């Protein structure tokens, strides 16, 4: 996938256009680490509006799966096809020297659009980051940095979100807020695949349980 990101983003817009085609489809997808299969073959089909909750014990391969779908991991068997997407890994992907606002500007720059500043500020305000909008991320608390990352998904044009344990380090209110945001996103024709150890508080969600193969730690 990494091989032609441009086409990705185009797909994204198309997909956003007519809702009948899946945003993501995998057939007998198995990720490997060190040439070892991590989980049973996966056949997923993610339509607009779906919210997948990806459960599984530590080491069951959630992150690896998400990285694979994002094109960051090439050691897998089976196939997958996906449109452009937003990926949030364990690491936040914020430039810690830049303020949340500047980070947002950079990301919209990547997808070469100009930053809609008022929109960005509105989002940050909703995430309770208005005061920190201009402080470099390295001077934010863990949870505040998380929220800055969340703002990035909300700005992104892509409609498929791959989230890896996005609730980490969030306080209670923010966890609630995040649940609402996910619901809204799905309601708005987006889709979410969220690896987590909490239970998503989302209206209709489908749960995918990854079972570690023999040879994993549990």
């Amino acid at each position: 996938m990494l091989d032609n990101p441009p086409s990705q983003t185009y797909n994204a817009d198309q997909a956003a256009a007519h809702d009948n085609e899946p945003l993501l489809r995998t057939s007998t997808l198995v990720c490997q680490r060190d040439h070892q299969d991590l989980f049973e073959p996966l056949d997923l089909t993610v339509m607009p509006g779906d919210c997948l909750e990806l459960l599984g014990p530590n080491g069951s391969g959630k992150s690896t799966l998400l990285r694979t779908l994002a094109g960051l991991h090439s050691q897998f068997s089976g196939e997958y096809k996906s449109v452009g997407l937003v990926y949030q890994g364990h690491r936040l992907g914020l430039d810690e020297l830049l303020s949340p606002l500047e980070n947002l500007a950079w990301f919209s720059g990547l997808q070469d659009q100009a930053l809609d500043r008022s929109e960005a500020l509105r989002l940050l305000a909703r995430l309770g980051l208005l005061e920190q909008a201009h402080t470099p991320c390295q001077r934010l608390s863990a949870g505040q940095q998380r929220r800055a990352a969340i703002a990035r998904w909300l700005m992104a044009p892509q409609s498929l979100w791959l989230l890896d344990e996005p609730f980490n380090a969030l306080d209670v209110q923010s966890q609630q807020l995040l649940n609402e945001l996910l619901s809204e996103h799905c309601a708005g024709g987006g889709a979410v695949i969220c690896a987590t150890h909490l239970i998503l508080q989302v209206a209709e969600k489908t749960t995918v349980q990854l079972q570690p193969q023999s040879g994993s730690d549990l």
Partner: protein
Amino acid sequence: MKGLLQRELVATLRTRGSVINPLGFLLLSILLFAIADPGVRDEQSKDLSSVFWVLILLTNMLSLDAMFRRDFDSGALEQMLISAHMPFVAILARIFVHWLGSGLLITLFVPLLGLLLGLRPEMFLPIMLVLLVGTPALSLLGSIGAALTVGFSRGGAILALLILPLFLPVLIFGNASVAAVVSGQAYTAPLVWLALCSSVALTLAPWATWAALKISVEMQ
């Protein structure tokens, strides 16, 4: 593109250290040489010019390691590769900013360095021209090595090993042109070769860097 450049510049300026320091490093090592053999300024400036270029190469390398490391550690690199509309534009922006902070900066300070090295003022302009033409190749080629080694926690030295052979032609032609300038001969021929190096690097390096980055990102 503009957004990208802006971000790069802001980030660079935030770590103020990174702006002045390639230059400071260059000055200091010239100082070192002056101390190490005081005779240096008396000899004919040919060897001087050579020391000059070697130091520019080393300076460049010192700043290379930081080119992608921060983004790699913070995960911003993944984001760039995933969601960049045209990744190699982002990469070019990064390289360009690196050049601003190393190559261009040094070029602008040639007069000062020249004074330290006891070059004659009329040489300054030609030398600046040579640097202006040659240094982009360094940042461009260097980015390949930086991208390949960013995954290693102690990449600094392995980077050097990978890069210096790539720098060799630049060194030779650049040094030749400076030498020609100093000895007052025509320096167009080596200069043209230097320009060739830079333009070839410009066409190939960003893609190689992109490929290298993809490899590094997959490392975790």
